């Protein structure tokens, strides 16, 4: 489980007074402001963030330490990260995608099935996309109590009881 979670990206400068355009990857796009201050990928720089207005495909914002248009141009493409502990805690049986991605999936007999590559939802419930060495293609596993009885974030393991015909 990574300590930093990517929540947005700087897509360029906005105006000539050091404002930037940002794209938010949050489920509720405005929530990116609540995770301020954000950092860059290696955590070496911290950017306090204040949203100023909504524009096409994102927001404009004032980032701490970015005073001029040249500064804003220089950080174009920088991904913005929040610390994992800044995300609010969730009720039982609810998980952040970023926590699930990368977990190892074992069957009820203890055999390794693969790793969670992505979490998706096409309208009929959440699905775990599992990528394993012995698999030709990724497998989609319904994220239900029946099919996934145990999720152990501490040890990074998921125990799955997949329905017949999936693997």
């Amino acid at each position, binding site marked *: 489980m990574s300590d930093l*979670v*990517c*929540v*947005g990206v700087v897509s360029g400068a906005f105006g000539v007074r050091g404002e930037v355009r940002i794209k*938010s*990857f*949050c*489920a509720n796009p405005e*929530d990116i402001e609540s*995770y301020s201050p954000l950092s860059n990928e290696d955590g070496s720089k911290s950017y306090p963030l204040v949203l100023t207005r909504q524009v096409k495909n994102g927001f404009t914002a004032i980032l701490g330490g970015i005073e001029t248009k040249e500064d804003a141009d220089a950080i174009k493409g920088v991904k913005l990260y*929040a610390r994992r502990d800044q*995300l609010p805690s*969730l009720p039982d*049986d*609810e*998980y*952040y*995608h*970023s926590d*699930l*991605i990368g977990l190892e999936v074992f069957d009820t007999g203890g055999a390794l099935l693969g790793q969670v590559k*992505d*979490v998706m*939802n*096409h*309208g*009929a*419930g*959440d*699905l775990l996309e599992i990528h394993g060495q012995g698999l030709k*293609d990724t497998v*989609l*596993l*319904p*994220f*239900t*109590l*029946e099919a*996934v009885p145990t*999720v152990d974030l501490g040890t990074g393991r998921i125990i799955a009881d997949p*329905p*017949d*015909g*999936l693997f």
Partner: protein
Amino acid sequence: MSRSVWKGPFVDAYVLKKAEAARESSRNEVIKIWSRRSTILPQFVGLTFGVYNGKKHIPVNVSEDMIGQKFGEYAPTRTYYGHAADKKAKRK
């Protein structure tokens, strides 16, 4: 123009057969279907269908609010990987 009511909902016959067989066997299995055009009927609630999207079968757990929709609506044919960020998944 919408479908005439007197015709009833369209479902491929093999989907009905497979669903009936699965319900009788009461085994926990994914019913693989290729018929994206079939309407979801009340008797499918609780079953899991693997709906073909042109590449693989996407598991679709049928619930009550899906009745009347088509299977294809729940198995998109194009892939898009977004960012995880603070998105949540709920185990039901």
